[in-house]
């Protein structure tokens, strides 16, 4: 295998970034989504309207936000309002993508960011929903960004913080969630995953460069569907890496 000139985090950021389309609205959570959005704005999506939880809308991500309520989340933005305006915009169907993270995910894309173990006697108390549940409930397409291993990709999450397809086809609608919403992609250090249009179960779409299908299956704690043709993601381009390192994260917060 040839020596890679990038690290897994950089690959993850590039994969997420490529999913952000120009002239669209995207709810940006803490961490990797911020880097991905900044990279997308500087690459292929200059008119990506970023939306941050506590009121920043349309920021130009010259400096990488470190907090979803910090001043960088509304730097040269189009508006700086409050959390109610943001969540209600999603509620009215104005926000296409929601980029979020989680500690555990199941085959239907349900996410846990609340607790590992029993709710009342937790092994680990995680930060909690914050806006995660709202994003997964109201945005049209939710994209989860995760590290890929068997402890995180499990058959049943300890706690459903944020709704995926719940128990399968039709269950979101039956629960009262808006129709035609739900998980769209899962981006990991090993793969790009989607969801089968009928069964709503997680499906391997592409592997990260140098990663085999077997390795992905080995690191997934449930049966993963395979796309008819599992592709291999192109590695980060010279341009992506240059912008990412010298511009997006010039203060070296993440990479």
């Amino acid at each position: 295998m040839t020596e890679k000139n990038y690290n897994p985090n950089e690959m993850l950021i590039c994969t997420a970034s490529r999913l952000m389309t120009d002239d669209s609205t995207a709810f940006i959570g803490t961490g990797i989504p911020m880097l991905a959005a900044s990279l997308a704005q500087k690459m292929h999506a200059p008119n990506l309207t970023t939306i941050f939880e506590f009121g920043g809308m349309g920021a130009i991500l010259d400096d990488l936000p470190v907090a979803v309520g910090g001043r960088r989340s509304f730097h040269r933005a189009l508006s700086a309002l409050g959390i109610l305006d943001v969540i209600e915009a999603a509620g009215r169907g104005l926000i296409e993508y929601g980029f979020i993270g989680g500690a555990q995910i199941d085959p239907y894309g349900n996410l846990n960011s609340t607790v590992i173990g029993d709710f009342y006697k937790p092994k680990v108390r995680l930060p909690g929903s914050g806006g995660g549940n709202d994003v997964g409930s109201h945005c049209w397409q939710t994209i989860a960004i995760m590290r890929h291993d068997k402890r995180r990709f499990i058959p049943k999450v300890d706690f459903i913080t944020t709704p995926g397809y719940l128990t399968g086809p039709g269950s979101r609608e039956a629960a009262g969630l808006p129709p035609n919403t739900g998980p769209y992609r899962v981006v990991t250090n090993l793969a790009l995953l989607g969801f089968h249009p009928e069964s709503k179960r997680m499906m391997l779409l592409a592997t990260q460069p140098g990663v085999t299908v077997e390795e992905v299956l080995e690191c997934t704690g449930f049966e993963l569907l395979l796309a008819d043709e599992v592709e291999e993601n192109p590695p980060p381009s010279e341009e992506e890496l240059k912008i990412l390192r010298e511009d997006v994260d010039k203060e070296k917060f993440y990479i």
Partner: protein
Amino acid sequence: MKILQEGIGELLQPPDVNGFREWNRKKSKSLIDKRMNDAEVVRRFIHEGDFIGTELYGSVRCPMSIVNEIIRQDIKNLRLVGQGVYESDVLLAAGLIKEIDYTYIGLELYGISHVIRREIDAGRVEKIVEWSNGALVWRFKAAAMGVPFIPVRSMLGTDTFKYSAAKLVECPYTGDPIALVPALILDVGIIHVHRADKYGNCQIDGITGFAYEMSRACKTLIISAEEIVSTDVIRRQPDRTIIPYYLVDAVVHAPFGSHPGEMCYHYERDEEHIQLWAEVSKKPETTQEYLEKYIYNLKDHQEYLDLIGEERLQYLQDIVPSRG
């Protein structure tokens, strides 16, 4: 309306909207000077067992001078609306929080809160009831509307719903299931703003977070402000006033009141200090040492600022970028 399901979380603060109206009727509507210091505010307005909320959150526009004073005065058994970072961590570390309407307690990019875990294990935090951020701001909105609940499409189908005190009902108009969340009326809300006059008319620069809704959802509202301005300044730009005086009970002048958090256009967040907390809060002993050094051993906010030092505060101002 048919109730289809109920969350098993306890309703920590029942939505007494009529009581809220009576309370608001009695609130002074005169333009009186409400300035006082942190010590007096906490002594007069924050009592053991109160349900309190702080806004925005620990690293952004947060009323830290008042949070620190609550800890100094050791007001116990508080119930907290928990969308918090550093500020909820120090309140928890001081052992003052008994119950939480919980949505997020963590340290943002520095990960999970170690303090919340220890407080749960020690049994000091007795009740945690789950909500989403959206549910929380809608609960404030219901209180602001003066109604006991509001229908929302968050939390549906999840454990976030199961461990909340929300209810699932059949919508009387569409027949679809929809969640109802109860109005949340705080005993005391505490909000840090950029500028206020002595009567409590407040203006915030930048995003407003929960401030609009929370300020209208509390019986007692305490304001701390970077700057106290003349009412003339307010009257010149009334469109900028987000909190009018009659909502407000006390006004504290607190320059650098959000430290170690940021105050947009005034000073940046003190990254080193936030990292310091992230590190020391991992262990009970170092957590307590921190509380001694930065809170208990100090008389007031001025002593805190002296300890942080003029040079550091000046630096945090100097690194504020231009708005262009």
